[in-house]
């Protein structure tokens, strides 16, 4: 199994001299199974350079899994050029949006509106299918299996775990660990805490023993208090999670768009001092980084 990062930035694409080393594109991860099946996680702006790399390999068959439909995870989709070329196949998977009441099939439609994009959905010539997944639903992609789990973000967000011949990886999309909405003196505090603990235990069980854990690490612990409820995690709570579930590797991604490369390395180095001796190997996601195992 092999993964390659094509976009590691959160919220908005952030090109420029201060982000040149780690990259300014928003989320996109390419995964290749042992048998070479193409699985793509999210379609941020990073999917455009990925598309260009695929042009030499056409026709292609891509299984795209969208963690959630916020812009930074879908805005590259209309620029995924294989979608315009007959002979290619793409299957787009994602969650049901509880609030709008629609499935993932709306992900292209909402972007290809006359005033906002010059191409109509009808002009996508590849064979495109949509599959709205239920919570916990598993999909087979050749020799790999991808299973969804519901995480915590202001819109329905699925994390995905991939299994392939005993190897595994997980990508969170955007996730903030559950927090108690009550304070300790409120009557409901204990009950709510018990429910959060149960949710966390479910997620821990889902992630148990994963080889490569790719997590939303937008903030530092110091930054987090002013970002509660925004739906993003921190370096340290991702590290704790990776340690609890026995992950071999933790890869920190969804870099804050205003964080320069120097600053990113500084906060990362600070976090590394807290990695336990028997803890996971921890890496900072970088555009172009590949991991094979």
């Amino acid at each position, binding site marked *: 199994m092999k993964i390659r990062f094509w976009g590691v930035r959160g919220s908005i694409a952030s090109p420029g001299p201060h982000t040149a080393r780690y990259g300014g594109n928003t989320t996109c991860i390419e995964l290749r199974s042992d048998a070479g099946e193409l699985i793509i996680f999210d379609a941020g702006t990073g999917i455009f350079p990925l598309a260009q790399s695929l042009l030499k390999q056409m026709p292609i068959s891509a299984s795209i899994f969208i963690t959630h439909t916020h812009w930074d995870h879908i805005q590259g989709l209309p620029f995924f050029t294989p979608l315009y070329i007959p002979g290619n196949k793409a299957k787009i998977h994602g969650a049901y949006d509880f609030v709008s009441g629609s499935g993932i099939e709306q992900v292209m439609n909402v972007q290809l509106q006359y005033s906002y994009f010059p191409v109509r959905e009808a002009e996508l010539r590849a064979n495109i299918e949509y599959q709205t997944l239920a919570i*916990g639903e598993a999909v087979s992609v050749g020799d790999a299996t991808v299973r969804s789990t519901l995480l915590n973000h202001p819109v329905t967000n699925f994390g995905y775990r991939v299994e392939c011949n005993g190897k595994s990886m997980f990508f969170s999309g955007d996730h903030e660990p559950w927090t108690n909405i009550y304070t300790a003196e409120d009557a409901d505090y204990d009950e709510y805490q018990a429910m959060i603990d149960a949710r966390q235990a479910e997620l821990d069980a889902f992630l148990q023993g994963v080889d490569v854990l790719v997590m939303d690490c937008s903030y530092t612990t110091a930054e987090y208090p002013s970002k509660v409820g925004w739906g993003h995690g921190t370096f340290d709570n991702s590290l704790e999670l990776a340690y609890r579930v026995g992950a071999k590797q933790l890869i920190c991604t969804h870099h804050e768009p205003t964080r320069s490369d120097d600053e990113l390395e500084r906060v990362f180095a600070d976090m590394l001092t807290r990695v336990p001796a028997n803890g996971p190997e921890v890496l900072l996601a970088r555009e172009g980084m590949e991991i094979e195992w």
Partner: protein
Amino acid sequence: MSPEVEKKLGAAVERMPAFPKSVQRVLELTRNINCLPRELVGVIEKDPVMTVKILKVINSAAFALPNKMTSINQSVVYLGLNTVKNMALSFAAVGILPRTNAAGFDVQKYLMHSLTVASIARALANHQVVGDVDPGDCYIAGLLHDFGKVVFAQFMPEEFKTALLYCQEQGVPLHVAEAAVIGADHTVVGSMLAERWQFPPALVACIRNHHQEAGQDAMGDCLRMADQICRYRQFGDAGNPYRAGESTVAPQRFGQDLEAVIASLGDLDKFVAEAQSFAQVEAA
């Protein structure tokens, strides 16, 4: 409107139940983007009817949750505050409908009409008149625009029955029939009720003016267009069928071509399905 009619309407409005405090609070709280999650949960939980409705929808097949949700808190843990907040908002104001009336006015079809108008008005505000209007307000306007008919059906059933018939037989809009038979139409009594419930003035005015062509703001246009689309496509029924050759409302905002406006909204089934999921919970 004659003084007698005014008095009669006033008495009917007086007899309508108060707008539930909890619903009012939900509307207030959700206007503030920084409202504390625990406050919102507190308000919802104090209203057993709203709580049951939210849980019913969350536990419905469409959501396919692996566990059954048994409390609002648990729903917030699972689905997040945003989702629960939006549901509470959708239920706001729907729950006070009387189930039956002596006028033979089909409350279930009325509810489908109101809910579909609400969803489409919100979509129009979201996609067509971006920035001019709050989509949430348009939803509420859609939900409540015909509430005056409920007052008629409940407290002036004989007159309202006659008006419904008059509308059918004479082929005139229902509000014209109401004015002829009752002496005032549902926009008058609906806005009186909205005033008594202390709704924001813009919403009261929107209900009051929704059958007038002139002087509409963006909210009024979205509401009237959504209403026309629902009558044209027969989504629900509030006693006022679409008449062939009806001129398109708000042409200066949406153009003359009703079919084109409908096409711009994409597949309308999603609006109907959303309305259905709420209407079914009400009926259960």
